[in-house]
């Protein structure tokens, strides 16, 4: 191993961060090269001294200060669900779902499937009676106890049926 390569490896050698094969090669070189050995000693000196300084200058919390910091952490933020958590515990999914529902609702309002002109087709008998009530003419006494009104949705073919008893009265305030 040449001096140039050894010089490159010395910082890691000083902290014991080389592979065993590299360590033995560097050691063999150091035994026969005094200049590299001096360089290695300088690394060891600087590293060990800095470690000692760091150890000697370690700071610690005052107990009250530490307790306050921990208390702040606990009270400031309640534990939240991780962004990696599966649905429905993840907020992102909840917001996405709300967005989809909002879009769907908007589309429903724009398209307006409850189009009365096309979809609502009341029975002719009931319609005539409603018309009679609206115009103020006396309603003919009927023997029928229950009347039925059916609405058919043209898109889905779904039927909605209302049943009215004979006492049903439609009031329109104008």
């Amino acid at each position: 191993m040449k001096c140039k390569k050894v010089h490159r490896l010395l910082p890691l050698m000083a902290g014991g961060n080389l592979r065993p094969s590299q360590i033995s090669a560097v050691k063999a070189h150091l035994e026969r090269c005094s200049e590299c050995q001096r360089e290695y000693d300088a690394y060891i000196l600087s590293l060990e001294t800095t470690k000692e300084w760091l150890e000697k200058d370690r700071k610690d919390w005052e107990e009250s200060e530490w307790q306050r910091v921990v208390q702040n952490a606990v009270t400031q933020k309640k534990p939240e669900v991780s962004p990696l958590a599966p649905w429905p515990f993840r907020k992102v999914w909840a917001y996405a779902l709300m967005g989809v529902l909002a879009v769907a609702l908007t589309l429903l309002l724009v398209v307006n499937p409850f189009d009365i002109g096309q979809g609502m087709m009341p029975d002719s008998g009931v319609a005539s009676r409603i018309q009679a009530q609206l115009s103020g003419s006396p309603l003919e006494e009927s023997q029928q106890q229950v009347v039925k009104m059916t609405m058919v949705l043209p898109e889905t073919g779904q039927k909605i049926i209302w049943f009215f008893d004979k006492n049903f009265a439609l009031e329109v305030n104008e």
Partner: protein
Amino acid sequence: MWMKNEDELVGEVLQGDHASFEQLLRPYRQGLLNMAYRMTGNREEAKEICQDALVKVYKYLHGFQRGKSFKSWAYKITINSAYDFLRKKKRFEDTVQRQKDLEWSRSPDPERQYRNKEIKDRIETCLKNLSPREKAVFLLRDGDGFSVDETSKILKCSSLSVRTHLSRARKKIRAQFERMNLGYREEVKNEM
């Protein structure tokens, strides 16, 4: 006395036991504070970083994978908080040059106070030429004794990158020692 392991404590915190949170962090409180302090060089800023880190630890505790090292996870969050702090304040260049933190060197013994200040100044001198990344690698590996693999996981980089930064950091520190004429180990020891 039987000690609860970290996973048990994490479980208790998630169930709402606040006392377990303190118990969980107590072994690392000094290390986290010192890491933040070395990154900024200021005690008040270090406390601020730790406060931010602890809030994040508590907030994202659900995301901590049981069975992994809680220590590494807490250090990772603290270092990221320190990066954020330094980025926000734009103090990469003048971290060491700022106003000296007198509170830490406060001591009733003038001689001890002088020695503490000397040591503090020397550490700052050694670390001032390191980039934030080099500083983090050096402090994790040589200051807190994390392995190269652990350091790479904390900093989310490859082992090769850790070795490269570590090598550069040690070279810069060694060069700084030369500039400070600290050629004799015994002399240094006596001064300490």
